[in-house]
């Protein structure tokens, strides 16, 4: 099954993208596939904060791990709705999620 994700880029342009749920991808990876300016420097290990996003919809997301929390705590652009995209798997649970890329680190 495919899900739909609404993404607002750093230039404020908003677009809907489609993502497959059966390829073991996370949000950081799908943003890279669509060539959004997200580096994913640490490959998705919650070590670099280059995949920082804001969540603008109400979805049941996986809990924030200690390492994700620590990385977000150390970042001055962090807001209450901040997450690391690499820590959110693409699944049915996040269909129609609405996200915005955080400023570049």
């Amino acid at each position, binding site marked *: 099954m495919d899900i739909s994700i609404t993404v607002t880029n750093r230039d404020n342009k908003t677009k809907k993208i489609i993502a497959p749920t059966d390829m073991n991808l996370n949000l950081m990876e799908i943003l890279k596939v669509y060539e959004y300016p997200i580096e994913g420097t*640490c490959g998705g*290990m919650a070590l*670099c*904060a280059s995949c920082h996003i804001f969540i603008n919809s109400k979805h049941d997301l996986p809990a924030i791990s*200690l390492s994700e929390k*620590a*990385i977000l*705590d*150390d970042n001055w652009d962090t807001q209450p709705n901040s997450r690391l995209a690499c820590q959110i798997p693409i699944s049915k649970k996040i269909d129609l999620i609405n996200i915005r890329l955080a400023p570049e680190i």
Partner: protein
Amino acid sequence: MIQTDIIIIGAGPVGLFTVFEAGLLKLKCHLIDALPIPGGQCAEIYPKKPIYDIPGYPSIQAADLIKKLMEQIKPFNPGFTLGETAYSLEKDQEEQFIVTTSEGTSHRAPVIAIAGGLGVFTPRKPPIENLNEFEKKYIHYIVKEPEIFANKNIVISGGGDSALDWALYFAENFASSVHLIHRSENFRAHNDSVQKAMNFAKLGKIKIILNSEVQEIKEKKGALSLNVISKNKKTQSIACDNWLPLFGLSPKIGPIGNWGLEIEKNAIKVDNATDYSTNIEGIYAIGDVNTYNGKLKLILCGFHEAAIMVQSAFKKIYPNKNNVLKYTTVTGIKGF
């Protein structure tokens, strides 16, 4: 002017292994890296994580891989310019390249190997307006020479390994006073270091200020005065000789982007069918910094690219000599 056969830009795993492959062909190398230590991503991003796809090692910690590479290249006695960014590129009348760093160190060689990975590791700077006014005199984003902080009053900001490790180091070795300011109450540094820092705080060797950040800076009586605000809006000011905001480094392609090399998606296009040469003759790009059809950003692939590339570099440097591939098993390692 430092003269060598191959200037290697980037001392990550791929740049380091290039020294070995070049050494087998009796080519001397000099490495330049913006970081004060060798190792690239392995040293800066994940020193304590295991890597499972280095041939011959079912598992090896990234920092150990770098240690072993340093040991492997030792016989070839490479030169290092560390803590400096390769900034400008020129060619002289004898067709040799001259690479000059941000600090003004010049290097000259007939061949350049760019092993710059994801780019120059650049400090993440806190969003404080007048930061650059005080950078030269008071602020350090990377610790290059720890001795300069001996007996100084220093303040470190950050919650990662480098913030904690340096706070401990200064408290243990020489600084007169160390403050550690962190934006939250959990650190992302290694547990052992966190525990040690807490013990030091109990002994009064480090003052730890949690849930706080530096909001403003100004100069006062020949010292830097930091205005620190906590989450519940309490403020205090701390005077110090040096402030070290250690919020990590993130890679940026940097000055190499302006050298006339063909760049695609932040990487340098190379000829992968032959020798990983770029569009400028005599300049090669290997490891994570290059791109070609089917490229994989893996250490293993960078090692392979290094071996192929130095063969081509040898022909460029000695057009009339023929090189015959010899196994290290047969010839051993003859250093210089």
